């Protein structure tokens, strides 16, 4: 009898695995085939990672999972609302001033470029017949048109995320335990331990990566804001915010965050030492990030070599653009965990 049962298991196990694979494929295909839902889904996953611990704590205090999720989402929404309102007043004031200065910035940019053209002409001894001001105006107008054309799509994605993310978060929080139980129940006993270990480690890595990136963005944003405020650069809050947000993107984020600030400061003020000091602020913040924050909080927690980090970000960008760059590092960390566990299992089995 026991022998018969052992022989019967592969059939039962493979049926369970096929069901699980189909279920997983269904979820992933919904994610990949509906681009409009991607930002909301990603935001919801981030929210669930953050809120799952307090929900568990509240459950232990006798509050039902549904009420705990609702309460935390409401409190989270209020907190974000207050932060956005407070930040928006500073952001809005600086944004309005900046918008009003755009013609001056354009003229400044054209003036600098013309001066550069004249210097180059002198150096080469030939005249360069290019109307730089007109060229810059054309380029800026194309950029403006493209921005305006992309604005409705961006606004709809943003509003969609604002509407769907809390709903997805609520249902994921409410049903995450049942989903986890379903997956565990469908796992054949012989894969149970390996899967659980991989799942736990991958989950912990994702959680730590998220924490580390948020901390990194906050610290870099704060350093840029404080640094620019000290040297008296304009729009310190706005540029600090941009530097913090773009820092979430590995490697190119810091450069992207510095470009608008340096261009605007460079063309807006005659004093070249302010541009130099602003560059120093950005370089300093990124050196501190590269030497201390990233290795201590991000690379160590995800346990990947710098080369692997770089390669994973490059592959992520090629495959899936900006979102690919955002999710490349945690995915690479999870692949490493799966690989290590598989090698360990195969090695142990071979040794025995």
């Amino acid at each position, binding site marked *: 009898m026991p022998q018969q049962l052992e022989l019967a298991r592969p059939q*039962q196990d493979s049926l369970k695995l096929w069901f699980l694979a189909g279920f997983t494929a269904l979820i992933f295909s919904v994610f990949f085939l509906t681009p409009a839902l991607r930002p909301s889904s990603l935001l919801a996953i981030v929210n669930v990672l953050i809120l799952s611990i307090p929900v568990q704590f509240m459950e232990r205090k006798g509050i039902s999972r549904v009420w705990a999720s609702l309460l935390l989402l409401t409190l989270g929404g209020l907190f974000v609302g207050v932060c956005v309102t407070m930040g928006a007043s500073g952001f809005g004031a600086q944004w309005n001033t900046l918008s009003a200065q755009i013609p001056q910035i354009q003229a400044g940019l054209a003036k600098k470029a013309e001066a550069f053209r004249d210097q180059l002409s002198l150096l080469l001894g030939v005249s360069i017949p290019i109307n730089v001001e007109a060229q810059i105006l054309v380029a800026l107008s194309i950029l403006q048109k493209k921005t305006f054309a992309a604005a409705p799509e961006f606004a709809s994605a943003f509003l969609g995320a604002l509407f769907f993310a809390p709903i997805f978060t609520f249902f994921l929080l409410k049903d995450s335990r049942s989903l986890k139980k379903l997956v565990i*129940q469908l796992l054949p006993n012989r894969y149970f*331990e390996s899967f659980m270990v991989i799942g736990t480690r991958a989950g*912990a890595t994702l959680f730590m990566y998220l924490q580390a990136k948020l901390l990194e963005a906050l610290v870099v944003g704060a350093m840029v804001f404080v640094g620019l405020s000290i040297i008296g650069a304009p729009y310190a809050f706005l540029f600090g915010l941009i530097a913090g947000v773009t820092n979430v993107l590995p490697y190119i984020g810091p450069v992207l965050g510095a470009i608008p600030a340096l261009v605007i400061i460079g063309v807006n003020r005659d004093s070249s030492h302010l541009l130099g000091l602003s560059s120093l602020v950005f370089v300093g913040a990124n050196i501190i990030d590269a030497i201390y924050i990233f290795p201590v909080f991000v690379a160590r927690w995800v346990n990947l070599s710098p080369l692997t980090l770089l390669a994973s970000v490059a592959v992520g960008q090629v495959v899936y653009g900006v979102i690919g760059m955002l999710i490349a590092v945690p995915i690479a960390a999870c692949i490493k965990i799966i690989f290590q566990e598989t090698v360990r299992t195969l090695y142990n089995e071979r040794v025995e």
Partner: protein
Amino acid sequence: MSAFAELWSSLKSVRGAGLVDAQALRSFSIFSDLSRQQAEKLNDHLHERRFQAGEVIFDRGQNGHALYLIRAGDVSVQYWDGKTDQEVARLATGDFFGEVALLCDEVGRTAKVVALTECRCLALFRESLNHISIRDPALGVLVYRDISSALAQRLSNITKSIDGEVKVVGAPAT
């Protein structure tokens, strides 16, 4: 049970309530000294598995990551004597096995454990125990102490057996 019937049974069991309540967890001898709150916290980290009679729960040399508490059923602990698997102990409801893999990362399973009847076990993973120790050091110490005490008792039984003081030993370390 046919493959489809087992799949359906697995899907249906998801709707059932969680694992054991805190009181039931304290009925396991190794966790009898936990407070109700501590048992509830530990309960969050346990995973129930069902094994059919004759099913190998784990084999010697396999990668191990978890300790199993027997909630219902009987299991046989077997050692390889070079020729065949020899049963060295039978464990029943309330007992536990797999503690070596829980405590040592690099050591594979030291014995083979087979379900003698249909079994329901609760798995506690090393990762979970590490997590508990960081979040709630007092509970972590208590769980480690309980498992270490049980392990020491098993080691003592084996030592006595080697010395010839007793013929029948308790459960060996698994």
